[in-house]
Structures are given as structure tokens and as C-alpha cells.
């Protein structure tokens, strides 16, 4: 059994009638995009990224700010920007090429896009 979660209002009785989604816990629908796997890996994400590059750069800037608050010298950011791109060729095909294409389309540094893509492995500690 839980501790904090056994205490209302952090827990609640099973909800009903929430579908179709609406109300305060529904933030919106998710848009559909098509990725054509017949295209070269570097080109596949261009259309999607052209629409989402502002949101992507805001997220990556926030992660950089967070890292800088822990390591104020900015050495960690320099390491990501200069050393991570050296590993791009070691990623299995087609992922390295797709990440390069996303970095090109978004105008973000390759190392920072690569970090976003390996976030899971880094944060399972």
C-alpha cells in the first residue's frame, strides 16, 4: 500500500465517464504526421521538425539551463557539443543519419539533439 497516495486529495476513487476526453485533465488532441521510410534517413523528419523546431529548441535550452545550474562552468554543455557528435557514426543505421537530419532541420547543435535521443539511457539511474 502507498503512503502519500492513500491520503486524499492525492488519490481518488476510480474515475468514470471521462471518455471521450474533456475537462481539466485533458490538454488537447495529438496531431498526426507521416514519415516516409522510402526517403533518405536525413530527409525523413524535415517536415515534422520544421513545424516543431521552436518547441524542440525551448526544451533543449531548458535541459541546458538545468545542467548549467548543477555544473555552472558550462563544461558539460561544451562536452555535449564537441564530444557527443564524434559518436554519431557509432549509432546503428538509420538512427545516426536521422538524428543528423533533425539537427540540420532544427538548426540545433548535433550533440544536443543526440543527447535528447539518448536521454533514457542516461536517466535510468
Amino acid at each position, binding site marked *: 500500500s502507498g503512503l502519500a497516495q492513500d491520503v486524499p486529495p492525492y488519490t481518488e476513487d476510480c474515475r468514470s465517464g471521462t471518455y*471521450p476526453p474533456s475537462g481539466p485533465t*485533458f490538454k488537447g488532441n495529438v496531431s498526426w504526421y507521416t514519415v516516409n521510410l522510402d526517403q533518405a534517413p536525413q530527409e525523413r523528419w524535415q517536415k515534422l521538425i520544421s513545424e516543431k523546431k521552436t518547441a524542440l529548441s525551448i526544451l533543449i535550452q531548458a535541459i541546458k539551463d538545468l545542467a548549467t545550474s548543477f555544473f555552472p562552468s558550462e563544461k558539460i554543455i561544451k562536452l555535449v557539443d564537441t564530444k557527443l557528435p564524434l559518436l554519431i557514426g557509432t549509432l546503428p543505421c538509420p538512427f545516426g543519419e536521422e538524428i543528423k537530419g533533425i539537427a540540420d532541420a532544427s538548426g540545433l547543435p548535433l550533440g544536443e539533439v543526440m543527447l535528447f535521443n*539518448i536521454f533514457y*539511457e542516461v536517466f535510468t539511474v
Partner: protein
Amino acid sequence: CTSVVAEDKSGKLYHARNLDFGLFLGWDVKNNSWMVTQLLRPLVVNVDFQRNGKTVFVSTSFAGYVGMLTGMKPGIFSLTMNERFSIDGGYIGVLEWILGKRDGMWMSFLTRSVLENATSYEEAKTLLSKTKLLAPAYFILGGNKSEEGCVITRSRAACLDIWELDLKNGTWYVLETNYDHWKAPLPIDNRRDPAMKCMRRTSQQNISFGTIYDMLSTKPVLNKLTTYTTLMSVSDNKLEAYLRICPDPCMPW
């Protein structure tokens, strides 16, 4: 995260998930929410991956992220991944990769590869349970036939357990959060029991997109880390995804 595969009385399979991410990655005081979670929401997209003009698989993903955490191969299988925390975590795998030991697979690249290339539930199960990984993970896999549903618990090197649907013994759903199903969850992060309580209360005969969405909307299954909810039905070729938010009062995880 919370993922579930459930079978209704007619043998139809449903697969759904809440994706929770961003714990300890900055707190936005103004909006009373996790900063990264909030910034991830505008990046959530549904993607239809096509070859020769035909759908190969569909997924709910983040723009800029080429791996997959949630996806479905229409008519064949559905797949979600939940984070598994371990001392022998992914950072060791990343260090090994940097040092040149590259026999493991990046987790989200494996899920993408399975969605793209596997042609059956069994093939997907084999690939997800046997491929060496850089990080531990839970893979939640659903198929299109009765009892095709399982939770695969993975360490980096081995498959620790496969927990499968078993109707004869009353297991009509499998539900995974972020803890090994044979162990108790962390007392301050018990989403499993509230979720299972709602599943039992719903009962097998009433399971549907609507009742599963109800369960995933119940606090603390829905919490401040919840970014999106995806509902999938392989046999109906349906994937629906919704952005989520948990207004106060709400558990931070």
C-alpha cells in the same frame, strides 16, 4: 509510466499507457509542474511510418526523438516501454558504448526496430527478450489473438521475467508501472494498486477504450509527470493519443 494490456470477453485486446517523464528535471514554480514534462507536451506527435505509401507502423512519439516508446503494427502487435530503474543502469551502458564496447542496443532504437521489422507477436517477443540492451527496461507487448499480451522485464543483459496473460488463471490483464511485478512498489510511488483496483472494479466484461481511459485518468495513476495517454486496439487498427495535465491537488509522481 503505467502500461496495460487487457483482453475483453470476446478475446479482443486493448493496449494503453500513460507516459510519465521529467521527475526531478526542474520544477516550474509558476505553473506548479515539472518543467521538462511541461515542455515535452508540445512535442508529442502521432506518426504514421509508411513504406511504398502503406503504413508499416504508427506511434505516439516526441518530435526530434527517433526511437519509439509507444507504437502499434496494425493487425499484428502493439508495444509500449516503461522505464526500469537500476543501479546497473543505462549510464553504465552509455559509458561502455563510449569506451568501445558496443554489443548492446539502445532501448528506444530496439523498440523502433521491432515495430519496423518484426512480422509477428512471437518475433517481437523474442527480439525484446533476447537482444542485449544498454539500459534496463519493461517492454509491454500486446498481440491480436487471445492471451497475446505480456510484460517483459529486462536487465541490460538478460530477460528476468515474462508475465503473460493467462485467462484460465484469471489473468485477463497485465499492468506495469515502474517496478518488478513480483516485488512491492516503492511505498511513496504506488500507482500499481490504484490502477489494478480500477481494472478489477471495471471487470473484464466492461473493458473498452473508455474504461481504460477512466483508469488512466484516476489519481495517482494520472499525476504531475503524465505527458500523454495513448489507447491502442490492434484488431481495430486504432491508435488514439491525448495530451494530459493533472491540476492541483495532484501527486508530483
